Every structure is written in C-alpha cells, then in structure tokens.
C-alpha cells in the first residue's frame, strides 16, 4: 500500500516502437461506444472487516479445480527494490513479500474479493485494552522458518525492533511512533544490535505472547501490524544490511535465485505448514519473475499467449491505455483479465503555501477537466471520478461532491472564472508539474489541463519534472510548483491513514507527504481527536465529516480518480484474483491449469 510511488498503469514505452509489426487484424478506427464492453468491476473490495479467532485458523480454503505443481511467471518493468521486510513499504515489494514474510496479522481474501483481517502468526487479531494503549497477541503453534527451526516470539519482537535500526528507514513508522510517542523515534531507541530491547514490547516465551504498551493510543494497531514492515525476522539469521539480499522465509515460498534487475525465482518452502496459515494457498511449485519488460511489449506478449507466456501474468503493470480497447472488446482476451479498483486516490496537490487564497483553490477544482483526463487514461475502464479525499474503501466513507464534479466532469470553467474574478486573481499563473518520461498519458493530460485553465482565466505554465527525481522535487518545502500530480494509497483502510499523512500540518518537512503543505490549526486538532476514537464506526463517520469540511473550506487538493486496473494472465493460469491492497494478482492463490 503506502505512498503510490507505483506509477499509473498507463505506462508506455518507447521500446514498443521497435516492434511495429503491422498486423493484419489491426482495425483502423475505434468504433462506437458500447457499454456492453463493460468498464469492469464496480465493487470496491478494499474495505476490511475484522475476523475472529475461528477465521484465523488454517488452512486456507481450497480453491475448486486447483492442482499443485508447475511454475507461474510474472513480468514487470522493474525489480523488487527491497526484500528485507523492515524495508518494505512499497506495494510492489509487498506483493512478493506475501509469499515469504508473515506478520502477526494479515488480510484474508475471499473468492469474491472481500477481505477480513485475521491473525497470521497470531491466533487472532489481538486484544486491545487501556483505551488502545495496550495490545496483546498470542503466537500459533507449529510456526517454522525455512531451515526448520521454530519461529518464536523473540523473532516477532526482533522484527519490530529492527524497525528502529539505522538502515531500515524505508519502512513504515506508525508503530515506532506510537511505541516511543515521538516522531524522532531513532533517538529514543537505536535498534536491537547493541543488546538492548525495546521497553514498550513485552514478551512471554512460555505463553507465546507479545504485548505492546504504547505511549499514544492506537485503536487500529492490529491493522498496522499487518504491514510487512513489521514482519518477523529470525534473531539467529539476521544479517543486518545483507538481509535485504537473502531474507529467511516463514511463508510457503523461499528465495531460490535473484539476479538483480533481471530475474527472481521463488521455490517451495518445505517447512511451511498450511495448517498454521489461514491466508495462503500454495499450488505452484515455484514462481519466477522477469524484469525489464515494459507495459506495451508485456501486453503484446500476453495477448499473443504463446509458449511459456501461457503461464505468465502481468505482475506489476496493468493493461496500458493503448491496448485496453483491444483487450476489452475481444471476448477471448477479456476472459483472461482480472480487474479491480485501487484503494488509493489519484489527485493533484495544490501548493497552499503559494496559492494562499482558498477561492483560487476552489476555482482550480471547478475548472479541472476530469472527463477529458479520464478519457485519455482509457475512459470508464480506467476508473471512477473521485470527489472526496477518502475512497469508497475507507470505513465510514460517505459520498460527497463539493464541487459538482459528477454533474460537470468536463469542468465548469465559467464558474471557476467567476470565482477567480471575485478573488481578484484573474490571470493567476499556475505552474503545473507531472512526472515526465515513463507515462505518455501525462503528456496528453497536460494539454487538456492547460486548455481548461486558460479558459477559466488562469495562466497555465507546464513544468514537467523527470520521473526519477519527481517525488524528491515536489516534496521539497520550497518547490516552485502550484499544482502537482500525486497519489496516495492508505496503509490500512481507515480515514486516519489518508488524512493524517496528507493534511497534518505537523508533518510538513522536506520529503513529507503533505505535499499541499496545508497547515490549518482546526484540521490538525481534528486529526488528533479523531485518531483517539476507538469505535470504528464512529471514527469512520468523523473522518468522512472532516474530509468534507477540508474540501469545502480549504480545497487543498483536486481529487482525480479512484483507478480501475485490468491485468492480463496467460491461458494456463488459474485462480486469478485481484488484490486491492497491493493492486496486483494475489500470487498465493494462483495455480497452473492442467
């Protein structure tokens, strides 16, 4: 989940130009709109209910018709950046981590896509007491590492403590902050390597329990602990920085071979006991990944479906905009797709430090050409219009449309112009930036955006930034951009994990995700208060209300889309299921068709 550094699927590649085989089946035109082609699912499956101890018992329900054996091959443009669980935050790394990392809790996905939070290493989803300041988990029996040794509470604690080490800065920080009560938690505790243990984590080896005593209440700790950043690591086999190269598995598969940026292979872990695992099935004997395959050649390979590609899946990118029409209008191809809505929001952050007048920010919201942008992404197949900060997956989500975007998705430039005139800011310069180099779609959206802004009386200036340094540049406090392309996926499906990182004024710093640099006292205060509500339903309502209030009064962002992605798989791949958390195939449910 985490920060959507995961780029749009609308990836395109220059390399595709090299394979210009003018196939005879190419049609000259697009044909009309036929709604029967279907834009894909309309169900958001990212919301999660909390399961019982019963749900947390293994083994995972068998999938009908699934058989053991074979190899599933995944294609991706880039390698996994980290294998060390404490350094995993990025959705793409997590998609693989599900095969070899286990946390105290985890998400159990039903065949219809609905999710439950269950105990993975723990027997249930934990017991909360003391108003969310104390959490206790009990470990299951029969948990083993890939060398056959027992997985103990010490190993679970070690995984938590490694999150404080100097080399694990890439991981999540929620638990560390809650345990120490400080955002600068590394100054309080420096990791387990000098022999000291963390005060707030108490273990009982005989009873196999682990207890967290938090400094600040965290009613949703059971969700936080499902993040791979808090996965268990064996005390005996911890190789510190080198662990990133050769992690030890407690899941159904272990790392067999890895040639960085080329390929990776996962083989079966014989010591994994399915009876301990309510989440994972493990049908294929192995998984292999091939890196460096850009999305257009990747889709062309899967469309052709020849030879080994019959056992192949799109592991990272979805079907790009250039191929989506072909895939969705060819029944044989459409059959080989899965699709789902992402939990995250794609939006444009308005730099509130530079655009200080809320009226101007509202005018930007009114003027933004959502319909044109989405058509460039591939129309309804690319997603739903977003009108709020929280996505429908978030607990407590309430539909709202402050700027009437659903009625006028093409943008209301007249209204925007009137607002701008009222604010006395006609001709206001707007520096718009987007990551350049990977996605051709943004080269097109910039044109419709500039046209709409001109029509609304702004003076648009388009300033693309190279995609490799994009985040570094827009996350600088003193950047010179007014409107910045951005995206955010919640770390767990709650309003806190969206609104706190994006709008809490206390987090503003270089590299912060509060790209809008919004710092409003009443919002900061409301975030603090809402975080303490222990009743999930009440908390959900409070976050939804705050969402609407922020958008109405401050309008710090322009919500764009909740995106839908289509993924192709080969004809011999069975059990295809979309994982809304990490927007990918659920690897551990796939099987090879006989």
């Amino acid at each position, binding site marked *: 989940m985490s920060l959507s550094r995961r780029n749009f699927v609308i990836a395109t590649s220059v390399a595709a130009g090299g394979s210009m085989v003018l196939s005879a089946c190419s049609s000259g*035109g*697009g044909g009309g*709109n036929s709604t029967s082609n279907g834009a894909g699912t309309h169900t958001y499956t990212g919301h999660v209910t909390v399961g019982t101890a019963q749900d947390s018992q293994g083994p995972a329900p068998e999938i009908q018709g699934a058989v053991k054996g074979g190899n599933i091959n995944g294609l991706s443009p880039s390698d996994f950046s980290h294998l060390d669980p404490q350094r995993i935050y990025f959705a793409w790394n997590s998609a693989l981590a599900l095969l070899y990392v286990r946390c105290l809790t985890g998400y159990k996905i039903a065949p219809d896509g609905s999710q439950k939070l269950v105990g993975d290493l723990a027997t249930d989803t934990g017991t909360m007491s003391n108003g969310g300041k104390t959490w206790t988990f009990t470990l299951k029996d029969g948990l083993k590492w890939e060398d056959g040794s027992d997985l103990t509470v010490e190993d679970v604690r070690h995984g938590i403590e490694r999150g404080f080490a100097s080399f694990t800065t890439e991981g999540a920080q929620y638990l560390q902050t809650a345990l120490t009560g400080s955002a600068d938690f590394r100054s309080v505790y420096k990791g387990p390597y000098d022999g000291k243990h963390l005060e707030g984590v108490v273990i009982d080896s005989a009873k196999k329990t682990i207890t967290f005593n938090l400094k600040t209440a965290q009613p949703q700790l059971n969700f936080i602990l499902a993040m791979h950043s808090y996965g268990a690591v064996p005390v005996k086999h911890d190789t510190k920085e080198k662990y990133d190269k050769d992690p030890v598995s407690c899941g159904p598969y272990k790392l067999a071979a890895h040639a960085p940026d080329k390929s990776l292979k996962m083989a079966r872990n014989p010591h994994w006991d399915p009876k301990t695992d309510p989440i994972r099935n493990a049908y294929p004997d192995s998984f292999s990944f091939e890196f460096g395959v850009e999305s257009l050649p990747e889709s062309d390979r899967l469309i052709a479906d020849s030879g080994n590609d019959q056992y192949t899946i799109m592991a990272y990118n979805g079907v790009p905009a*250039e*191929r989506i029409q072909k895939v969705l209008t060819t029944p044989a191809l459409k059959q080989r797709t899965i699709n789902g809505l992402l939990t995250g929001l794609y939006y444009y952050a308005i730099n509130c430090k530079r655009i200080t007048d809320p009226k101007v920010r509202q005018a930007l919201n009114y003027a933004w050409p959502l319909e044109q942008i989405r058509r*460039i992404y*591939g129309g309804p197949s690319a997603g739903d219009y977003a009108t709020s900060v929280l996505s429908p997956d978030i607990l407590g989500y309430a539909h709202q449309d402050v700027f009437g975007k659903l009625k006028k998705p093409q943008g209301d430039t007249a209204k925007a112009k009137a607002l701008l005139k009222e604010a006395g800011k006609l001709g206001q310069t707007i520096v718009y930036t987007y990551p350049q180099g990977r996605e051709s779609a943004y080269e097109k959206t910039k044109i*419709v955006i500039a046209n709409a802004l001109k029509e609304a009386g702004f003076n648009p200036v388009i300033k693309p930034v190279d995609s490799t340094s994009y985040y570094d540049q827009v996350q600088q406090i003193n950047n010179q951009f007014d409107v910045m392309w951005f995206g955010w996926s919640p770390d767990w499906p709650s309003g806190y994990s969206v609104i706190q990182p994006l709008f809490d004024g206390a987090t503003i710093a270089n590299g912060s995700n509060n790209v809008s640099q919004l710092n409003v006292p009443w919002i900061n205060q409301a975030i603090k208060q809402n975080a303490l509500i222990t009743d999930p339903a009440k908390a959900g309502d409070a976050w939804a209300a705050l969402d609407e209030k922020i958008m109405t009064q401050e309008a710090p962002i322009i919500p764009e889309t909740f995106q839908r992605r289509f993924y192709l798989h080969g004809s011999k791949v069975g059990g295809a299921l979309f994982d809304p958390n990490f927007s990918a195939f659920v690897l551990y449910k796939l099987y090879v068709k006989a």
Partner: protein
Amino acid sequence: MTTPASPSPAAPLEVTDEDSAASAKPGNPKGSESRSPGRLAWIRFKRDRTGVISALVVIFFFVIGIAAPLIAKAYGKDPYTTYGQNDPSLLNDFGFPVKPNGGMSGDFWFGIDPQLGRDVFTFLLYAIRNSLLIATATALLVTGLGIAIGLTAGYLGGKTDYLVGRIIDVLLAFPQTLFFISFWPVVLNILVAPNEATPTWLTVVSLISIMTAFGWASIARLLRGEVLALREREFVEAAKVTGASPARIIFKELLPNLWTPILIQATLALPMYVTTEAGLAFLGVGLSDPTPDWGVMMQYGAQYYQSDITYMLFPGLTMVIFVIAFNLLGDSVRDALDPKARR
C-alpha cells in the same frame, strides 16, 4: 555549442562565406559563351526523370510547409484545438475515434488523433513546416561551417590542421543522442526560470545549434581531404607565385572545384536532419506536444497502431516519401554535376 575552438575560426570565415557564394556564381558562366559546366549539368539533370519528379515532390513539401497557415485557414481547423474532447461524438470511451479509419470524414480529412482528438491534417501540415524549418536551417549552417573550417584546415595545414583534426575526431566519436538526452533538461533548467514555460523558439534555437555543433565535422573532414589533394596542384602553385592571399586562394581557386561534393553532402544532410530531429522528438527531447512535430506524431502512432493504424499512416508515409525523394534528388544532382561517377 560546446566546441570551444569553433567560434574563433568561424568568425572571420563567416564573412568570406558570403563572398564565396557571390564569387561562385560568376565562376560558372565564365567558362564559355556556348555551354558552361553549370548549364551542362542542368541539361543532364532535366533528362533524368527520377530527379525531376523527386525535385517536384521536394518542392511540393516545401510549399505546403511554408503555406501551412494559409491552408489551415482555408480548411478551417487548427492543430491545437482538441476537437474530439470538446465533441463527445468523435471519440469513444477508450479515447479512440468513433468513425472508422482513424475518424476520417469530410470535416477531418486525415481523421483525428486518439485520446486528444486533434485534427491530423493540420497537425501534419504544421509538423512538416516545423521539421523542415529546423532541418533546412541546420543543413545550411552545417554546410557553411563545414566548408569554412574544412577548407581552412586543409589549406593552412600544420598546427591549425592538427587542432581542427582533433576537434573533428572528438566530435565524430561523441555519442550525440545520449548527449542530447542527458543535457537537454540541464540546459533548459539553466536558461528557463522555474515559473516560466519553455518558449518554443528557445527549443528550436537550441535544437538547431546543438545539431549544428555536432554536424559540421563530417563535411569539414571530407572537404579537408579534397583540399589536401588540390592544394599541391599547379594552378594553386601559380596563384601563390602571383602573390594571391590565402583567402583568395581558398575561395577563388579551391572552392569552385569543390561545389560538387558540397552540394551532394548538403542534399544528403537535409533529409538526415529531418529524421534526426524526428528521432529526437520521438525520444522526448526537442520539440514536444503541443508543438506539432513529425517525430511526436510518429511516437504516438507507434503507441496506437494496434487500434488505430490510420494515425500511424499519415506521418509515416509522408516522411518516407519526403526522405526518399530528397535522397533521390541528391543522387540526381550528383549524376548531373559529376557524370564520370555515373553508374
């Protein structure tokens, strides 16, 4: 741009360059009243049917390039408006043209482009206009610079020749495309304020100057070689004995003998720069959307060819026709000027 040595020799020679153009003309009819070599070449060229047809095609491209705004006005569309986005009946939900053949119709002769729905016909006209402008300017500059430096180095010899020779070596060995891709954003960052858009003229000027900076070397080297052979000939010796200045010898004695290779090089260079410029735009440096450009069109065409082959067809075909015609024209010019080399 980054050749430190080029400004100094180029500066004095630029002046004489004009002289040479002026002096070359009287040089031709001087031969005889009946038939000058130039006239003979013209007659030979007229007999070459391929050459004449190619010349007409090339002239046609230049004419529509120059007249693009007029044609667009008469046709009633412009290359910047996103017609398809403004009128939902033109593009379907996936962003592809609703009508067959890329949305070709009475209103949009060549169809509209996928996703944005701009008019392909006017876009292509302006693309041809921009590409030809850049390629012609570059070819002229490259030839001028190449002549000046190559002749000087060849005639003066010694240290000058050595120095120029090494500069040429470096330039020819330089990975140009990589250089463009890596330095382009850096240069623009330096020249353009962070809250201003990059002006198109700046892109065009820097494109031309970068391509010129790297392009003159091969012509200069070729001409230097020719001059080395020529300067030991008797007529040069004779000119030296009569006390002619080096400039006079270079431009009055040597240059007239070199027009054949120069013309051939220039006619080959122009289509090369058309493709180079398109290639750079294809790679994302140089002109970019919304400025119409052949390379940008090709880049998009390559993305959509599976669902909208028509869009690829127009920029692709026109470019192939233009480049082939210009290369054939170059061949014919060579045949006409230098009949001994004829097959």
